[in-house]
């Protein structure tokens, strides 16, 4: 009886959370996408002055991070730009307000 009750509760729980989990995942993906876009833009903006040396928009670590984000490897891209900024003694900008 106990096991039947537990099984029923588990099934009910799964049934209830099933529609919620993908939505949460999608939201987290959207947040990461926005974060990646924010960091990449910020690094492009302040990484280079005239824009003709190999930094800012032309930095290949930044370019690689942007490509990661475009290919849905958002976490990898965000981590790469954050590490780039920290390594260069930058203040990493705060998360954008949703």
């Amino acid at each position, binding site marked *: 009886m106990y096991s039947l009750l537990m099984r029923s509760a588990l099934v009910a729980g799964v049934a209830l959370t099933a529609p919620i989990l993908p939505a949460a995942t999608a939201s987290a993906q959207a947040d990461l996408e926005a974060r990646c876009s924010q960091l990449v833009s910020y690094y492009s903006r302040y990484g280079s002055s005239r824009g*003709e*040396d*190999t930094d800012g928009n032309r930095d*290949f670590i930044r*370019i*690689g991070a942007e490509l990661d984000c475009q290919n849905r490897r958002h976490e990898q891209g965000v981590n790469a730009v954050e590490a780039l900024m920290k*390594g260069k003694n*930058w203040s990493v900008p705060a998360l954008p307000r949703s």
Partner: protein
Amino acid sequence: MNLLRNAVLGSTAVGALLATSAMAADPIKIGVGGYYLFYAVAGHIDGQYGYADGSSTRYKGLQFQQEGEIHFTGQSKLDNGTTVGLAVELEAWNNTVAVGGSARQIDEAFLFAFGSWGRIEFGARDMASFRMYYGTPSALPGWGFINANTSFNWASGIMMNNPSFQGVQNAALGHQFQDANRINYFTPRYMGLQIGVGYAPKMNLAPGPAVLAPGIGSGPGNNTAGVCGFNDATTASNCPTNDNSWQDVVDISANYLNKFGEVVVALYGGFMYGSFIPGFNSGGSVNRATGANLTSWKQWAAGAEFGYRGFTMGGSIGYDNNGLGGNWYTGADNDSRKYTAGLMYETGAWQMSFGWAGTRNAAGNGLPQLTAIASGTTQALTMPVGGTSSIAFSNQLAAGGLTFGSTSVDKFELGVNYSLGTGIKLAAGAIYWNAVGPTNAVVGQSWGILMGMDLRF
């Protein structure tokens, strides 16, 4: 009554339009940004000598150089997803007074719009194919190998006179045509590929290396603010044709960006063509004594750049006919062939690079001798060119006899920078130039050690 109703309907329609516009997006608000670069350069530049009268110029071994711009930029996103904005760039220094007495105080001024359909720019803006470039990396802000439109040189007047000099400074396309009124369009990037195209109605500026264009030139009034074809932000009420200028300048380029494992790949190719429209008076576009002549302006470049775990390496090749045709009498061309390659490494707050650029030019129009120099700050060079073919093609060098032979310029650059904080860098480096040619009007060597700062705000 009808008039009143129409007026009411009209005002309602205008009101509705305004309300729609106001609700569609926040109004454009201008933000201020920009950059500032400063360097102290110490080293040596070979002097230059006029052989006919012994006049000369010597150069100090220490020089302070700076460059900066204040940018005013604003944009607004419409409900349809397109963002519309403008940018005006004010020089943060007193720029060189150009031909015609036009000081370049506003560098670029243009309108832009972008969305899922790509990006369009209209106004005084760099050529699309210039900005699409990928090739040789550099860690030396403001220098490097695509540093168009800057005064960061360390060279004598005659070294800069060398027909190959500009090539080592500008590996990409269109450095002569920076910031003229034009329209650019960039496609969205698809599968790593992006295409950029541009069009400028007219370019009215001096042809490539002046030393290869004796007695000829575009114009009249080339590169004057308020004249159509000016090489910076300007406006003009009309645009004359048949005046020895380059018109309908079209450029097209593509680049490809992708990442394979940990390797980032960037490839670039671009082409530019500007039709030469001669004047009704043939004088100006042809020198019948020397055979020098103006023609349609053609350029192309191709480059590749790769990044892997902090290393970036790349290079490019390019071609520029400098708007000059092959010499009427010798048949030899005046085209610049450009080569460059470099390697950069970055770790933590550091970036460091080493690069080379070399340009070769056959100088088919022949080169004059440097006979005299107005010594002092102006460095005006006297380089006589024969007014008749019998003198131009003689060995009467002091009277204007030309000397024939190829020219070359090689540049080596070592660069290091250290990031102190967001948009703040210390920079240092070393540079070496070697300009070679058949006469004393184009040769020299220089080397320098640099230290400076690079600020972005």
